[in-house]
C-alpha cells in the first residue's frame, strides 16, 4: 500500500507550486490579521487528491493497479490516506507558519481564532471527501463530480428550505451542551463518517469491473 500512497503523492507534484503560492498568500493575509483564507490549504489538498483520480482515469490506471498484489484494496486505502495526509499536513504547515509569523509580528494575529477556523475547514473538507469519494469510486471522476455538484446544490437548497420552515434553535442548544467537549465530539464524528465512507468505497471498488 505504501507504494500506492507514494504514487498518489507523486501524482500531485505538479500542483505543489499552486499550493505553495496559496500558502504564501495565506500567510501574508494572516500577517495582516485576516484569516479568511485559512480554509484554502485543506480545500486545495482535496483538489489535489481529486486530480489524482483524473490522472488515473485518463491513463486507465485502475485496471493496471488491480494486477498488483492486493491492488483493489490498496487503491482505496491509499486514496483515503493520501487525502488525509495532504489535508492534515497542509493545515499543520499553515498553522505553524501562522504561529511563527504571529511571533514575528508581535501578536497581530489571533491564533485561537485561526485555530478554530482551521479546525472548521478540516472538518468541512473531510465531510466533502467522505461524501465524494464513494461516488467517485462508483461512477468515475467526471460523473462523480457532476453528481456531487447536484447533491451539494440539493443540500444547500434543502437546508435553506428547512431553516425557513423549522425552528432549529434547539440544535444550537444541543451543541452548546457539549461545551468544551464539542471539539472531541466533532473529531469522533468525522472519524466515524470517514470510516463509513471508506468501507462503502472499498465495497464498491472490490466489486467493480474495469
Amino acid at each position, binding site marked *: 500500500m505504501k507504494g500506492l500512497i507514494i504514487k498518489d503523492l507523486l*501524482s500531485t507534484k505538479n500542483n505543489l507550486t499552486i499550493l505553495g503560492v496559496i500558502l504564501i498568500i495565506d500567510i501574508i493575509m494572516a500577517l495582516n490579521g485576516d484569516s479568511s483564507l485559512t480554509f484554502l490549504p485543506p480545500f486545495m489538498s482535496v483538489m489535489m487528491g481529486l486530480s489524482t483520480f483524473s490522472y488515473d482515469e485518463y491513463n486507465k490506471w485502475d*485496471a493496471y493497479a488491480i494486477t498488483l498484489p492486493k*491492488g483493489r484494496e490498496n487503491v482505496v486505502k491509499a486514496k483515503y490516506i493520501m487525502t488525509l495526509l495532504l489535508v492534515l499536513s497542509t493545515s499543520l504547515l499553515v498553522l505553524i507558519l501562522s504561529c511563527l509569523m504571529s511571533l514575528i509580528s508581535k501578536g497581530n494575529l489571533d491564533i485561537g481564532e485561526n485555530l478554530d477556523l482551521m479546525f472548521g475547514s478540516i472538518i468541512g473538507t473531510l465531510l466533502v471527501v467522505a461524501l465524494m469519494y464513494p461516488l467517485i469510486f462508483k461512477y468515475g471522476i467526471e460523473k462523480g463530480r457532476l453528481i456531487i455538484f447536484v447533491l451539494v446544490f440539493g443540500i444547500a437548497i434543502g437546508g435553506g428550505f428547512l431553516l425557513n420552515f423549522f425552528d432549529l434553535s434547539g440544535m444550537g442548544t444541543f451543541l452548546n451542551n457539549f461545551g468544551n467537549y464539542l471539539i472531541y465530539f466533532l473529531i469522533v464524528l468525522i472519524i466515524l463518517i470517514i470510516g463509513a465512507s471508506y468501507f462503502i468505497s472499498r465495497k464498491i471498488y472490490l466489486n467493480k469491473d474495469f
Partner: protein
Amino acid sequence: MNIIEIKDLSKNYDKFSLGPINLNIPKGEIIGLIGENGAGKTTLIKLLLNIIKPDKGKIKLFNRDYLEAEEINKKDIGVVLDDMFFPEILTPLDINLIMKNIYANWDLELYFKYLEEFNLPKDKTIKTFSKGMKKKLEIITSIAHHPKLLILDEPTSGLDPVVRKEVLDIFLNFMQSEDHTIILSTHITSDLENVADRIVFIDQGKIVLNDLGPDIMDSYGILKCSIEEFKKLDKSDILKYQKNKYNYEVLIKNKNALKKKYKGMVIDKITLDDLMVLMIKGEEK
C-alpha cells in the same frame, strides 16, 4: 503442471459474450492468444487478472483458486495491458520508487539495466515518451520483480519491426528459466510464428483452436485449386474455403496426407494470418 486452469468461464455483455471457455495452460510455454479485434482476447485476460468479474466459471492460477490466493499469486505475475499504465506525469524514477514499495523482490539493478539498454530516460515524464518507448517501459516494469507468469495484452502493437524484435528478445530471455510462462495476445501473428509453443485462437468469444504452434504449422495448409478441382475435393477435407477471382483457397488439415491424396494440386505452407483470415472469413462447404 498447469499454471492456468479455466473451467466453464463466461462473461456476458449487452452486445458480446465470452465463453464458455475451458483452457489449461501448462507451465513453461509461450502461449499465443490470437483473434481479431473484439474477439474476446482482452476480456479473457481481464478475467484472469480479476479486473472484471466472470458471470460463471472457475479459474485456477498456480494451482490455487485465483480469488482465494489473489495476493500471493499476483506477486508472481507480471502484466502489460493495452493502454493501461501509470499516470503519464510520472517518470521511470517515480515508477521505481513506487514498485520497490509494492514488490518485495523488485530488482532495482535489472530495472535500471533495461532502462539503460533501451535508452529510456530515467527522469523524463512518461508523456514525453514515444509509443515504442512507453511500451518498452511497460515491459521492463512487468519483469523487474521476477514474475513466473507474464500476461501481455498486445505488447507489440504500434511498434516498428526493430523495436518489436527487441521486445520479443526480452520475452525469449525471460523464457530461459523453464518454470516461466508467457501468455501473449496479439493480432500481429507473425510475431508468434517463431516463438509461440501453443496457439489459442479466439473468435466471437469462443476458443476455436488450441494446439501446439509447430503442430499447427506442420499440419495445416492452404490448398489452391480451380473451380473444377474444388468440386472434386472431399467435403470432409475442407475446413473452410474462400473463393477468389481466379481460384479457391481451401484451409486443410493433415497437409502431408492430402498432398498424396490430391497430387498435382498446390498445397502451400500456412501462416497464422492465413489461418486466422480463413477461419474467420472462410465459408464451409
